[in-house]
């Protein structure tokens, strides 16, 4: 009788876990975390390099070139994240959020056709750093993340 009860309990748990798999998400991936770090550096440098200041110069051509190069790096990170994801797509969504922000920043720069203002830039960089921090924090919450 006891053995039968144990077998039923194990079966119930297996069903629970199998059903719960849809509720889990992809495990920690070191490359995905590294990508967040690299993208953050690229993104912050873009904002800083094109903010008003001594010796800074606006060049539409240069900004377009920098934005194209950045776009490629984000695409690579997005493709990698999508390849490692499960149905929940949490990795892809995290990168997509940051990619959309970078794209918006490029559009903003080119629309205004001038360097970013220092007040705006200061506030925006604080926001960017928070966004990347949350992205990394999400990655480090995954099963298998280093303790």
């Amino acid at each position, binding site marked *: 009788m006891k053995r039968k009860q*144990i077998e039923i309990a194990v079966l119930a748990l297996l069903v629970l876990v199998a059903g719960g798999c849809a509720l889990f*998400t992809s495990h920690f991936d070191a490359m995905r975390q590294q990508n967040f770090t690299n993208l953050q550096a690229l993104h912050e440098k873009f904002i800083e390099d094109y903010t008003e200041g001594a010796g800074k110069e606006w060049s539409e051509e240069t900004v377009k070139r920098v934005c194209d190069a950045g776009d490629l790096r984000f695409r690579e990170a997005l493709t990698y994240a999508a390849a490692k994801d499960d149905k929940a797509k*949490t990795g892809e969504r995290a990168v997509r959020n940051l990619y959309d922000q970078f794209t*918006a920043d490029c559009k903003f720069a080119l629309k205004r056709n001038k360097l970013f203002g220092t007040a705006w830039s200061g506030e925006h960089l604080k926001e960017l750093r928070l966004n990347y921090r949350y992205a990394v924090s999400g990655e480090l919450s*995954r*099963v298998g993340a280093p303790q």
Partner: protein
Amino acid sequence: MSNLNELLKETGDEVKDAIRKEYKELLDAGKQESEPVVKETAEKVEQWLKMRAEGSLDNDELEELMSARRRTVQQFILSQEIKSRAHLERVSLGLLDLVMNKLVGKVLT
């Protein structure tokens, strides 16, 4: 022209006052929130509106900061979702380990 510019151009003084009042109530409510990201959002919005009023930001810049804030909050929400899903997996698999290793082992031996 930004959406904010268009909105302010089209609305009369009474509507602007109503919008100001509603913003103030929302901001005050946000600042009382216990959830840090909500409180932080309310404080930032208030600060940026002040910067706009003082002229340190223009309407387009204000709008871009608001959009960036929206993305930051969405990233925060996603990070919480990841934490919950990972926790669920750890608990489920932990339960299985407990049953398989401790109870089944004892019954079969």
